């Protein structure tokens, strides 16, 4: 979330799309109700189903799963063609005025530079025109045909209400009503917020779904405002924290992009990641990259990291390709992997195409499960009737299952969706011989270290040199680890303006990332968390819930990254002169000498408004990107059909089969054939969660199992009638990858839609069942889902695929 949970109460208009907060995040959704009650805010829900969020909305519109960009692109067209935008904001705080290379084109559904064979784009033309002064060229009048604003206007002019309705199945009047309501928040003192979740991310166009809404929020001037922003409602209690610690292949802790084969040495690595400012006077905050990276190297290698050995740069693994979860299971399926660990992760249930995942696991030499619960994955080799058909004698994988503790049994910090890091305390020991994750990992590491010290082996250096300063080596304490994450001075750290003045003494915790250095005098495990444990102590354990601003900022409750800032990009909540767009909801303002107010300013504290330092400090431009060349599948979002589409073409590009589905999405060899066709699988399926269950965990919890004991699917009355299915009948739902059996629930909450001249039915499939648990045993829903992901981040397309359904 750019904002935070309580801030939802400050909104004038709340959009719930690509999510269902009332059921998936009930206690956070309470703040939406608060906004409705106290501010008379309105709630709009757009979803294939009439969800419980929709039930309390002011306006609901149905949409075909997988057509969100068509809908939102239509909103952009509405805002631009009716001139309902926040002009000053768009002109100054976005790259609307920037001139783009004249070779940039969008033709027949494809952007310039497409390589069909590689299914990817060359980005030679996706760039700014650069001036002789080394800065990007701009046209402040926004009139040049090559400025971002005009290119955007042209791009979205195709998204007419007729075409939007034809593609999405949303009735035109409902679509226009929503456009009108959103457009009202283009007034500088009105804000709209968006609450989305996996209903947007889990598509082959997932990243662009979110970007389309980001464009809308920028056009309306809602970023940085109280009650505004782009709010991803994340899944697990600490999925935000684990993302920040970067337990995925592309990045090191603090989103430092991981080295690849092209980064032959530390110098090359740093140069590529340390940008130069693209406009004068901008903060260009990523220029500090070397400080963050060097401080991480010092945290990991301590005295062994010196300028003589590039601070241990060679010891870090270099990435040669994709290692996301789909890529991993693809490699495993090809027999290229020998070992695998699942720490609190149940991929047999949660990754697409269960059969492929199960077959892949059976090719491993060893599998290690670290979990509090007996997961489905841990028994992938064991027959469980028709729910898991397998012959164990043919599975040679050695499987270890290690009992882990859960939340109540550990002292730790969790980071909420609103980026607030909160400390919690252990209440009791876990059952039997269970241990904490830290202890389990430490035991394995110390054993390996002893083996490498004694017997040698390949590349022992990073193992033997890894810092391990913990008082009880077998049991590093959460406090020691959070202090390491937050960072400390190794030598005295001096004031850059006055080299005689010591700002942090050697051995002291740093107060924040501004004190980190690239000369080895500081260490910090994760720069964005820097300052969370300062000399003042553990700030994540703070419990002062006072809220003098009335905005719900509670600055002394826990610690929000970065720098305890609760609303990021908050400089954009003020006009150029530093006055809040809405003084009644002042986040920060210029006081005449400094920025101050009800949040930590997202701006250099003494940057006077007339210096022209723009609010989006993490870009070298200083402004937000309406045109974003970093995206894999286009600098502007474009509607593409899901890989399994009920239409035979993309209504936006009926003549170009290459542009039916995302042309830049990765499809593994052989997987294109596993996609079903509409003639065999005529119905759109989408998966979702229920208020009574959490993922694949609560099927092990008795009360939840009592509340929702049995697997079911939901269908419309129309489809039920066509197929002769009644509520309570047992049905078989098939995709091209397998089948599940479940109880049918016939409901008015799912409607048949008119799409491109035909009736499109939706089958709704809750995800929560499996063959392990105290619920009735069920089929793993991801038996059905396709093995293809988003072009940018490879999140699988769980939310829109094709099935058939029949009564058993």
């Amino acid at each position, binding site marked *: 979330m750019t904002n935070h949970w309580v801030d939802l109460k400050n909104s004038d208009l709340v959009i719930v799309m690509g999510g269902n907060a009332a059921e998936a995040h009930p206690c956070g959704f309470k703040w939406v109700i608060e906004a409705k009650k106290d501010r008379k805010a309105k709630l709009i829900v757009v979803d294939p189903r009439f969800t419980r969020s929709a039930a309390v909305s002011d306006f609901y519109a149905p949409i075909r799963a997988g057509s969100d960009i068509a809908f939102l692109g239509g909103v952009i067209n509405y805002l631009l063609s009716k001139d309902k935008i926040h002009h000053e904001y768009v002109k100054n705080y976005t790259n609307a005025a920037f001139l783009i290379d004249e070779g940039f084109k969008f033709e027949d559904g494809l952007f310039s530079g497409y390589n069909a064979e590689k299914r990817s784009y060359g980005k030679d033309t996706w760039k700014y025109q650069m001036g002789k002064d080394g800065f990007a060229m701009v046209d402040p009048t926004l009139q040049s045909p090559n400025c971002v604003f005009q290119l955007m206007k042209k791009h979205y002019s195709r998204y007419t209400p007729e075409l939007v309705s034809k593609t999405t199945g949303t009735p035109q009047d409902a679509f226009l009503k929503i456009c009108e309501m959103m457009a009202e928040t283009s007034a500088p003192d009105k804000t709209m917020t968006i609450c989305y979740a996996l209903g947007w991310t889990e598509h082959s166009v997932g990243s662009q779904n979110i970007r389309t809404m980001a464009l809308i929020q920028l056009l309306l001037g809602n970023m940085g405002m109280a009650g505004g922003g782009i709010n991803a409602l994340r899944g*697990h209690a*600490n999925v935000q924290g684990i993302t920040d610690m970067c337990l995925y292949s592309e990045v090191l802790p603090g989103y430092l992009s991981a080295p690849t084969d092209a980064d032959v040495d530390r110098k090359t690595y740093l140069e590529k990641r340390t940008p130069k400012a693209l406009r004068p006077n901008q903060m260009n905050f990523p220029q500090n990259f070397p400080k963050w990276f060097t401080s991480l190297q010092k945290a990991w290698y301590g005295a062994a990291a010196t300028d003589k050995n590039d601070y241990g740069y060679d010891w870090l693994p270099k*990435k040669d390709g994709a290692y996301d*979860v789909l890529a991993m299971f693809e490699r495993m399926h090809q027999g290229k992997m020998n070992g695998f660990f699942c*720490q*609190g992760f149940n991929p047999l249930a949660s990754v697409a195409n269960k059969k492929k995942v199960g077959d892949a696991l059976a090719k491993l030499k060893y599998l290690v499960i670290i979990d509090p619960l007996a997961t489905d994955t841990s028994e992938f080799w064991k027959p469980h009737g028709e729910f898991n058909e397998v012959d164990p*004698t043919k599975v040679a994988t050695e499987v270890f*299952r290690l009992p882990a503790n859960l939340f109540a049994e550990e002292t730790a910090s969790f980071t909420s969706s609103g980026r607030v890091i909160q400390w919690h305390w252990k209440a009791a020991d876990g059952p039997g011989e269970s241990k904490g994750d830290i202890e389990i990992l430490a035991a394995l590491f110390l054993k390996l270290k002893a083996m490498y010290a004694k017997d040698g082996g390949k590349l022992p250096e990073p193992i033997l040199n890894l810092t391990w300063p913990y008082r009880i080596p077998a049991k590093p304490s959460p406090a020691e*680890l959070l202090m390491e994450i937050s960072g400390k001075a190794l030598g005295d750290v001096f004031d850059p303006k006055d080299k005689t003045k010591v700002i942090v003494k050697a051995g002291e915790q740093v107060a924040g990332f501004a004190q980190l250095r690239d000369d080895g005098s500081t260490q910090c495990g994760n720069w964005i968390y820097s300052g969370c444990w300062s000399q003042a102590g553990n700030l994540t354990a703070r419990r002062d819930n006072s809220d003098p601003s009335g905005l719900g900022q509670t600055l002394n409750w826990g610690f929000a990254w970065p720098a305890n800032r609760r609303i990021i990009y908050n400089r954009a909540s003020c006009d150029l002169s530093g006055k809040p767009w809405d003084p009644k909801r002042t986040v920060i303002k210029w006081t005449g000498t400094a920025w101050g107010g009800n949040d930590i300013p997202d701006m250099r504290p003494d940057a006077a408004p007339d210096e022209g330092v723009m609010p989006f400090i993490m870009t070298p431009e200083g402004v937000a990107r309406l045109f974003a060349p970093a995206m894999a599948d286009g600098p502007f979002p474009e509607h593409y059909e899901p890989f399994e589409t009920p239409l035979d073409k993309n209504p936006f590009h009926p003549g170009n089969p290459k542009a039916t589905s995302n042309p830049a999405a990765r499809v593994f060899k052989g997987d294109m054939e596993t996609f079903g066709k509409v003639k065999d699988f005529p119905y759109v399926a989408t998966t979702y969660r229920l208020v009574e269950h959490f993922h694949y965990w609560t099927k092990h919890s008795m009360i939840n199992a009592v509340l929702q004991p049995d697997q079911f699917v939901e269908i419309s009355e129309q489809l039920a009638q066509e197929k002769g299915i009644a509520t309570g009948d047992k049905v078989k739902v098939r995709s091209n990858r397998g089948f599940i059996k479940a109880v049918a629930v016939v409901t008015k909450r799912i409607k048949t839609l008119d799409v491109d001249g035909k009736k499109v039915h939706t089958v709704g499939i809750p995800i929560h069942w499996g063959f392990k648990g105290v619920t009735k045993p069920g089929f793993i829903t991801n038996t059905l889902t396709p093995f293809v992901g988003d072009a940018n*981040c490879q999140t699988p397309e769980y939310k829109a695929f094709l099935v058939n359904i029949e009564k058993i």
Partner: protein
Amino acid sequence: MQVSRRQFFKICGAGMSGSSIALMGFSPTSALAEVRSYKLAHATETRNMCPYCSVSCGVLIYTTGDKSKNAKADIIHIEGDPDNPVNRGTLCPKGAGLMDMVKSPNRLKFPEVREAGSNEWKRISWDDAINRIAAHVKKDRDANLIEKNADGVTVNRWNTTGFLASSAAGNEAGYLTSKILRNLGVVALDTQARI
């Protein structure tokens, strides 16, 4: 003389009959409905967080015992933390059932192994588990860690063992996991954030 209803019963229990006390000229002042104090009043309260969705609701966990060395704490109740500015004491239908998650019959209690081709689990000791896993790891790493790529660039990656990391673990466990794995050379690393 102030006597509560509870003390009154106690006095009665000590041998005198109630009627005789009444005859002695005093009776309980206000008749409290409570016949025993709430067990939570004797429990230890620990501030914790719901592990489900990312609202990260504050919870209060009540355990028996006072956390003294020999007292085994047992969780007897979990409820929303009224001080938490986000959930303000509320919990949803998922969070309200946390006790049953902690006490799930499917909690793992001991390290186990399923041998190649076998159809059953076998209990093993932690030492055996760690020793066997470490042997697998070292063998695979020593055999397959790539020190230099075809162009002679030092790459030091080990991509034949993968790791999926938990979003239910704390930041500290997550950080330590990254610190260890990256320095073993692991690149095949992912988490729930992706899906």
